[in-house]
């Protein structure tokens, strides 16, 4: 039991802080801080800056660019990155398909995909959810039927985040519809988004943005060599991938940044002759959020320290559950601080409503997603009740 960071970890934190606040262009960090939608080019530029410094995929195997850091160092890396407003390396590449290929892929797949995935030369999207397979992912119906040296894919995926930018998709498909257990008949295929028969339809979200898509497959031919691991074992890889997704999903650094922002804005607003930042109810609300965020960060530190053998600690569900709630609470706080200005979401350049107040509500509405994606909070409660409490 020890409070302080070791001198090595302290130096590591300083190193990360300096890197993130200097090596990634200010314009990109400003866009993140202002809750603006990033362009594809901005994502790519940021990730390549990280990758050039060996900071894009520290959790990968060392031979593919990993850094063999301690869990605490990974936590510091992630939090400092978020605190500095640096866009995180694309999760579909670095947290999802990258580790799956590194663990289960063939040597040929590793050589072909991993360096390009780390450098965002290939932009991956996730073909998991379907209209009738959300939290119940194993009920997915997209099929792949073997025909000579190809798999022929038919069906539909949805909620495909940033699919409009994607070069490739990693896609769960049903390869054995007769399997006794439906989880056993699923495989994981990789294919380019410009393969004939793939069409994409963007879905507009509440905030006016286009973040997710529907993807349709009509007789899409995928070479057999693009199957990951073993046929009909895709569910194992999906579970491995989702476990990785849950780590780091608490986004503590990002929520911290929103609270800093909220305090700044509250100082600039006057209510009955006094700054909103001195209103007793407002200060109590912020103080309570800060305390809950501290509790979450400490829990994250406790959990990363106890994650053995690459498997997430059971309490990582707490991180997802509470992390999403606090992200949402911070966006809600910003809306409330913006107050009457919070309705002017799409004001034009002539408007006097500050940008932060314009984006507050769209951002709050958009953030309803965080308690839904990555395993909805209800799924996390099911995990806690089942695997931790034995209920």
């Amino acid at each position, binding site marked *: *039991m*020890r*409070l*302080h*960071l070791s001198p090595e*970890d302290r130096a590591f*934190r300083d190193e990360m802080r300096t890197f993130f606040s200097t090596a990634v262009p200010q314009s990109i960090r400003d866009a993140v801080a202002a809750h603006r939608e990033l362009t594809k080019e901005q994502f790519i530029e940021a990730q390549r800056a990280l990758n050039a410094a060996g900071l894009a995929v520290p959790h990968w195997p060392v031979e593919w660019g990993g850094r063999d850091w301690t869990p*605490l160092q990974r936590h*510091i890396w992630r939090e400092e990155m978020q*605190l500095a407003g640096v866009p995180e390396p694309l999760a579909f590449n670095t947290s999802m398909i990258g580790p799956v290929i590194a663990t289960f892929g063939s040597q040929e797949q590793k050589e072909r995909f991993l360096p390009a995935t780390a450098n965002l030369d290939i932009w991956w999207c996730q073909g998991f959810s379907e209209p009738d397979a959300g939290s119940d992912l194993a009920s997915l119906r997209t099929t792949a039927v073997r025909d000579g040296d190809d798999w022929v894919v038919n069906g539909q995926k949805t909620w495909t985040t940033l699919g409009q930018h994607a070069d490739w998709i990693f896609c769960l498909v049903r390869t054995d519809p007769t399997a006794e257990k439906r989880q056993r008949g699923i495989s994981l295929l990789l294919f380019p988004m410009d393969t004939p028969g793939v069409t994409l339809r963007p879905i507009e979200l509440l905030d006016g943005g286009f973040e997710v898509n529907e993807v349709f497959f009509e007789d899409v031919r995928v070479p057999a060599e693009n199957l990951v691991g073993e046929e009909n074992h895709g569910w194992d890889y999906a579970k491995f991938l989702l476990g990785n997704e849950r780590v780091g999903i608490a986004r503590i650094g990002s929520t*911290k940044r929103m*609270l*800093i922002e909220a*305090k700044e804005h509250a*100082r600039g607003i006057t209510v009955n002759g006094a700054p909103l*930042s*001195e209103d*007793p109810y407002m*200060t*109590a609300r*912020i*103080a*309570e959020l*800060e*305390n*809950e*965020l*501290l*509790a*979450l*960060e*400490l*829990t994250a*530190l*406790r959990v990363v*320290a*106890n994650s053995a053998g690459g498997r997430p600690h059971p*309490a990582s569900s*707490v991180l997802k*559950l*509470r992390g999403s709630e606090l992200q949402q609470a911070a966006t809600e706080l910003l809306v409330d601080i913006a107050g009457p200005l919070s309705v002017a979401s799409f004001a034009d350049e002539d408007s006097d409503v500050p940008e932060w107040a314009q984006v507050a509500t769209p951002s709050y509405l958009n953030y309803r997603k965080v308690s839904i994606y990555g395993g909805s909070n*209800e799924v*996390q*409660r*099911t995990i*806690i*009740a*089942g695997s*931790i*409490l*034995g*209920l």
Partner: protein
Amino acid sequence: MEFSYDDEQNGLREAVSALLSRAYGDSEQRRRVVGTDPGFDEKTWGQLAEMGLLGLPFAEADGGMGAGPVEVSIVAEEIGRVLAPEPFVEAVVLAGGLVADLGTDAQRAEVLGALAEGTLLPAFAHTEIGSRWQASAQSVTATEDGGSWRLTGVKEPVPNGARADLLVVSALVGGATRLFLVPGDAEGLTRTGYRNHDGTRSAKVTFAGTPAQPLGEGTGDQAPAIEKAQARARVAYGHEALGAMETALTTTAEYLKARKQFGVPLNKFQALTFRAADMYVSLELARSTVMWATLVVDADGDVVAAADRARLQTSRASRHIGKEAIQLHGGIGVTAEYKVGHYTSRLTAIDHLLGDGDWALARLAGSVGEHQTVDALQ
């Protein structure tokens, strides 16, 4: 930053747990003990002393074990886990802590040595009707006449005030708060003990020109020292609450599996299991914060602020878990015959000893503009 216990600390936990589960493993044992004065078991208190636990945080030169706040936290947690009514936090961490911080060499040796041996029970007589968790005395006064001091006024409720062998009393001297030692058999001292809702005991303690010995030397205000000792006690209470919350949760989870209604065990109802999952979330978040606060005490950081943070988190968690534990049990949770309600009662008492969650929040809110972020890593 490191959150795991070493072998010696794990060994301490096992030893304390073994002793206390012999004494209170069956909740009927506790019911019997708190049914009669002094509200705890003198024999168990003696066994805690034999294990060295009552002198745990004190210097070896004062008769203690020279251990740190982490060891103290382990004992407090095990106390809470079985709801042992022995006043460990009250006597060792708070009253003893004040003597250890402020006492002269002679006072420390005399009081802490005897406390460690289990032959002297000190109690901190500080709360007054109308006071609300502040560090200063409100109306009890101390006056000096020819080098001897006398106290006048009323302290209430004083935890273990009737049973205590020695009272550590806060009193006003001019505008300053000073501490005094008053033996239980002092002249002009009247003590009326009674039972608290959680089975522990408090007392009304009246001083009528009662002779008293100043604790320590000097004439300065001792309120800041009281604040710090109370902060350490808040953190230790946090661990007692963690132990109690964990038992309340595991007891509830067991009950959900065992109890049948509508022909199925209650854990078939997602409406109930989700609520149990939320209790777990509250518990783990509180655990992280309280453990961190103990590390702040250990590193002699900003103990008062850390204790407020732990208190806020624990208060919210203990209310949530305490109330849900009863609700998920149903009617049996409200009975005195079943154990779970007693956990809620004790958690409620801890919450209101030394300041509740809203009180801590008000203090934290007062300084929220003074920092940009709260740094967990130091």
